[in-house]
């Protein structure tokens, strides 16, 4: 090893930086006196950088406007916004830090691995954890007592998604001859595929599923995948994608001049993100996604939308409403429980969370309630279609604002 010479120490900088970290987070200062505060302190953990940054930032846009909207409904919450960088290690240590700095409830976290890391900390600290987005069915099956989930599992998403394809066929009198299912081979996609393999045969669909194709979520293009679909020539393509893959999929379909009657997502994001509209323009229209959606007829949704518009003039609520809506509801659940419990004491607050029964909320479905495992089974899906580059609810009729268009118009000649 060569000896090193001429080195100037830089420890002063490091020490200065260390001092900036709040000391109470490190050393057990006298247990923080928790006066019966009127405001609930909630740690909101999101992957705002790293692999899931796009989704995390979309959720974040919903989170930042939530306290103001909730205040109008008589709820007082204070949020700690924490970016866990799409990294499990960071998720775990930052949850500890948030709780050390006084968080009384945690919501999040979009990504399954991080969600479980957070769940463990909350379980040990007896702090309620409200999963606002997280679909792996296992999350509520692991025996955590301080956890509830206000989101559909992959099987629920797929089951509702398939049922609504039938509703679509009935509403538009269009029938499909055959279908192909394409999905990203990531966590969400694989869990959806499992659900699809299990549920499609039972769903009694009036058309056969010819093939299921998994693609690499890191693929640079989906040209080969589309060639493969084109060789089968289905008139319905079902997709479970992330948004950047959805762009590649549609783009390669257009280039290869493959035009199915419909592209439907049975419960996945991707076909409606702002980047999707930006990249594809008119070609982004008429795709369908069967998902829980912000109920456009709910008064609370309208309040959230108004606040969102004011805070984020560059973003559209219609596009962010899935992420923003569930993020909002996660915080609402915590705030509502706090109001009923009258205390932020963990076990008592958790009792109240479990006893949640919120009639008035944002997303489609019945009142927010949890079963004994902490799962909300009453979230319903809507059929949403992109129209003029805006996600528009088209079914079921009671929440729809337009009627569905099917089959979708040809790629050529769109404007």
């Amino acid at each position, binding site marked *: 090893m060569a000896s090193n010479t001429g080195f100037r120490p830089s420890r002063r900088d490091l020490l200065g930086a260390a001092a900036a970290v709040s000391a109470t987070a490190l050393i057990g200062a006298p247990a923080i006196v928790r006066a019966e505060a009127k405001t609930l302190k909630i740690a909101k953990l999101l992957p705002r950088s790293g692999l899931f940054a796009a989704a995390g930032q979309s959720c974040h846009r919903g989170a930042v406007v939530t306290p103001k909207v909730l205040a109008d409904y008589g709820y007082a919450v204070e949020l700690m916004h924490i970016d866990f960088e799409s990294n499990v290690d960071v998720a775990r240590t930052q949850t500890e830090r948030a709780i050390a700095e006084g968080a009384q409830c945690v919501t999040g976290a979009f990504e399954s691995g991080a969600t479980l890391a957070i769940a463990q900390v909350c379980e040990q600290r007896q702090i309620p954890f409200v999963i606002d987005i997280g679909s792996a069915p296992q999350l509520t099956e692991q025996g955590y007592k301080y956890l509830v989930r206000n989101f559909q599992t992959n099987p629920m998403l797929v089951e509702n998604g398939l049922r609504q394809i039938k509703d679509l066929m009935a509403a538009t009198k269009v029938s499909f001859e055959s279908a192909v299912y394409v999905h990203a081979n990531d966590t969400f996609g694989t869990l959806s595929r499992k659900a699809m393999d299990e549920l499609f045969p039972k769903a009694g669909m009036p058309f056969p599923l010819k093939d299921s194709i*998994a693609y*690499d979520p890191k693929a*640079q293009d989906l040209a080969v995948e589309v060639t493969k679909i084109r060789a089968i020539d289905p008139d319905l393509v079902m997709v479970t994608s992330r948004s950047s893959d959805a762009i*590649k999929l549609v*783009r390669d379909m257009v*280039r290869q001049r493959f035009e199915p009657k419909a592209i439907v997502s049975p419960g996945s994001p991707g076909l409606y993100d702002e980047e999707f509209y930006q990249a594809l323009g008119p070609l982004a229209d008429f795709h369908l996604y069967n998902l829980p959606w912000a109920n456009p007829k709910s008064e609370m949704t309208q309040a959230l939308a108004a606040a969102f518009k004011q805070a984020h003039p560059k973003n559209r609520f219609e596009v962010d409403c899935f992420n923003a809506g569930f993020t909002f509801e996660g915080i609402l659940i915590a705030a509502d429980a706090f109001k009923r419990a009258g205390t932020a004491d963990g076990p008592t607050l958790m009792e109240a969370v479990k006893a949640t029964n919120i009639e008035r909320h944002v997303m489609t479905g019945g009142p927010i309630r949890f079963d004994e495992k902490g799962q909300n089974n009453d979230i319903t899906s809507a059929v949403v279609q992109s129209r003029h580059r805006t996600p528009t609810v088209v079914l079921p009729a009671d929440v729809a604002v337009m009627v569905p268009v099917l089959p979708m118009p040809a790629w050529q000649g769109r404007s």
Partner: protein
Amino acid sequence: MLAIYLNVVVQGVLTGLLYGLMALGLSAIFGVVRVVNFAHGEFAVVAMYAAFVLFRVYGIDPMWAMLPIAVAFFVIGYALQHTVIDAFVGRPDHEQFILLVGLAIVITNGLLLVFGPDAQPANLPYAFDSVMVGPLIIDEVRVYAAVAALAVCAALFAFFRFTRTGTAIRACADNLVGAAVVGLNVRRLYALTFGLGLACVGAAGALMITIADAVPSLGPAYTLLAFTIVIVGGLGSMTGALVGGLLIGVSEALAGFLVAPSMKSMFSFALLIAVLVLRPQGLLGKKPA
């Protein structure tokens, strides 16, 4: 059915040429300066964003924008080698590795800060056009990008073959001591090479925006891809990089079509392992002395 296979192969070839151009830059840097550029893919992504901005703001088509971008990248590369990286030449791989991984982290997250996490498409007017050649459907952008990639490669070949500086650089790669003995300014040649390598990446990145959208987190995948191609094709061999690119492009396309698309990069890695074991100098590389 044959037409479909042929189509898949053509797609693979066109994409492969572009990959090849990207790998060419790495091959030059790695082969001459002996610095392992682990931020290679990140540079390609920066070039994608540069081409994106030039097109969106000034309406310059990436096929043209690639020229100023390549020049800018040459300057950046020259300066970078001259100031920071030069101290690491001849140092152990792992030290270069940390330096460049640090740089890669800075680039990726800097892009995230500036451009946000969403995919940024160039939206060229001809992005969706394709031509029918007999039974084949070929994307126009891919053809343009592949042709442009070939042109850049040809220019680089000519430079290394016919100019004095190019010959001098090749001499450095072949025999460093000898080159120093005959009085070549090795330090300057290294900086030139690093600049040229980055110019290649710059051009490749600018072309890449025509077929893929810019996302901050793309970098590591491109770095790995470039390394795979360079090793498969043969280090220090310029044709090797192109052939490696073609081979990876076509084998991924065929594997995706015949086996499972989600497993296609497994075949690249299997190919890489096979080449490392059976022909470590790469398919077109020279036998080590």
